[in-house]
């Protein structure tokens, strides 16, 4: 296979674009995709203070590299979830990445600052770990962005993340989630603006970008991942993609271009400040504070038992 641009030996095939690329031209291709996504959705205004959610995985580290190369100054925030070696390894990789490039990484330690870890919260609330984890991540990253005076929270969700989430939301006809699934969510009272510049880059491409750029990232899986339905949907979507290259991108793009509006016109629930922490919520006490409370009760009960 030969590179579409220079006819040198290709290192990656991107079937949905009917194109193969050598290393430098692939890296360039990915950066251009992100640049165009940012422009098309008017994600960033000049002078915006940007905060990126960093997990130590391929997506967030690749995105940090891409945005920096495109000339943006971006700070990172790493949330330590208290998941044993997995958390300490990914923290180490994130810190090494930031140090090498002289970037600023903030670290929030969930157990230290909020008194519980993701496994503890999952056990106490009988939620699946990923749902307790996702809830905590969304809450805390937003907090750090708002309290730190950032204009925008940048997230590393890729095309596959978004397509699989869309698939899941459609399977369950979760209208509220469908209404909110968009690559740009404007700021509102207590919520930072949120953008997802990687939505046109497939998961395989962010991984390839990381490998080809020499980025060391967490390859091993989180030990709590068992039962994660999103990952199963991704595998199925990839089987479809093998047969019909481009189907994932088409599914997501069709929704964003034509479908999502219908859901957004629906009733957006009104947000009020949480009685405990002041973050916006639809109830009296926000889901994070409720999770924190049941976990605290559970930990105390276990201690005294």
């Amino acid at each position, binding site marked *: 296979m030969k590179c579409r641009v220079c006819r040198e030996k290709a290192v990656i095939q991107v079937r949905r674009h009917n194109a193969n690329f050598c290393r430098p031209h692939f890296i360039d291709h990915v950066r251009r995709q992100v640049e165009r996504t940012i422009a098309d959705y008017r994600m960033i205004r000049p002078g915006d203070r940007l905060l990126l959610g960093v*997990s130590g995985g391929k997506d967030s580290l690749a995105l940090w590299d891409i945005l920096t190369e495109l000339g943006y100054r971006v700070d990172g925030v790493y949330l330590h979830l208290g998941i044993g070696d997995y958390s300490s390894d990914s923290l180490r990789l994130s810190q090494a990445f930031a140090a090498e490039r002289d970037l600023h990484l903030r670290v929030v330690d969930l157990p230290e600052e909020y008194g519980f870890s993701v496994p503890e919260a999952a056990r106490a609330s009988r939620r699946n770990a990923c749902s307790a984890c996702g809830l905590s991540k969304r809450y805390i990253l937003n907090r750090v962005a708002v309290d730190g005076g950032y204009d925008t929270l940048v997230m590393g969700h890729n095309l596959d993340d978004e397509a699989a989430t869309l698939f899941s939301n459609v399977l369950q006809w979760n209208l509220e989630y469908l209404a909110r699934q968009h690559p740009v969510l404007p700021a509102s009272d207590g919520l930072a603006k949120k953008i997802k510049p990687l939505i046109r880059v497939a998961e395989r491409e962010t991984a390839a970008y990381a490998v080809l750029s020499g980025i060391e990232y967490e390859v091993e899986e989180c030990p709590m991942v068992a039962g994660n339905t999103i990952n199963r949907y991704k595998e199925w979507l990839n089987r479809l993609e093998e047969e019909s290259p481009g189907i994932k991108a088409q599914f997501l793009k069709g929704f964003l271009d034509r479908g999502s509006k219908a859901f957004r016109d629906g009733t957006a629930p009104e947000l009020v400040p949480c009685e405990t922490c002041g973050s916006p919520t639809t109830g009296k006490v926000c889901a994070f504070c409720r999770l924190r409370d049941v976990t605290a009760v559970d930990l105390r009960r276990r201690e005294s038992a």
Partner: protein
Amino acid sequence: MKVILRQPRREIELEGVRRVSDLLRRLDVVAESVLVIRGDELLTVDEPLAEDDVVELRPVISGGGS
């Protein structure tokens, strides 16, 4: 040839694998879900493989909670 698998990391030996596409077929893996890495190169599906190659099959699917 030696194949390094991940999540968790382990190694297997395979014989008579002629190209990357054969390797993926043998292990029933879709190309879209993995990167095939030899040293510091990424391999495309048409790349020939040799008996003394060491190749890593790295899953690309990760993450979870949104």
